[in-house]
């Protein structure tokens, strides 16, 4: 079975072992990204949210994205994990880490993985607002400036 580089997590993401997996004597650069649940979105106050996924397809598509990034940017290794379930303000929703010889590759691959995960992986956000309403987010298009994580 090949190494798993993307998975969904139903409990809090623990960064330390993920980072440790990426340590490599050939690596001069390590870029990572954390998406945090923030207290507002598009002008509305947010109390918390829930992520749901089509698990089997999300994990296979996520795996393809990370493998594609290693190829495309020549990074040494990368890992991405995405939360599902209930999250509170400040919780980590997604983590991406990339090790590479040089910093440009690490930054580019990290950002690309995040963008692709946001646009291709079947995960949906259900936001709970300060006024008690809730909503499934089905964005019209992926706008890189639109969301935090």
């Amino acid at each position, binding site marked *: 079975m090949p190494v798993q580089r993307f998975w969904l997590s139903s409990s809090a993401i623990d960064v330390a072992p993920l980072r440790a997996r990426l340590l490599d004597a050939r690596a001069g650069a390590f870029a990572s990204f954390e998406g945090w649940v923030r207290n507002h979105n598009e002008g509305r106050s947010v109390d918390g949210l829930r992520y749901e996924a089509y698990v089997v*397809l999300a994990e296979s598509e996520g795996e393809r994205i990370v493998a594609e990034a290693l190829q495309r940017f020549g990074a040494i290794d990368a890992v991405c994990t995405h939360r599902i379930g209930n999250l509170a303000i400040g919780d980590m929703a997604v983590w991406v880490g990339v090790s590479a010889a040089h910093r440009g590759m690490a930054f580019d691959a990290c950002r690309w993985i995040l963008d692709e995960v*946001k646009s291709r*992986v*079947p995960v*949906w956000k259900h936001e709970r607002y300060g006024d008690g309403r809730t909503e499934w987010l089905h964005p019209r298009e992926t706008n890189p400036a639109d969301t935090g994580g």
Partner: protein
Amino acid sequence: MATVRLLYFASLRDAAGVAGETFETAATDLRALYNELRTRHGFSLPVERIRVAVDGAFSRLEDAVADGSEVAFIPPVSGG
């Protein structure tokens, strides 16, 4: 006629009121199947904003409906 297993996620599941159902259809392709379900459940999303997966892999809306397959219509994703 084909009998398929349908999976619903996010707003589609809320509208359908179920996470999945077994459904018999005369639709010739997956696009027509979605439009049939849209009428049935009152989905607000037009087919232009939907992707489709068959048996756990992304597929195309113009593909035929295969008897016995598992079909998931994927509304716009919002992870991250």
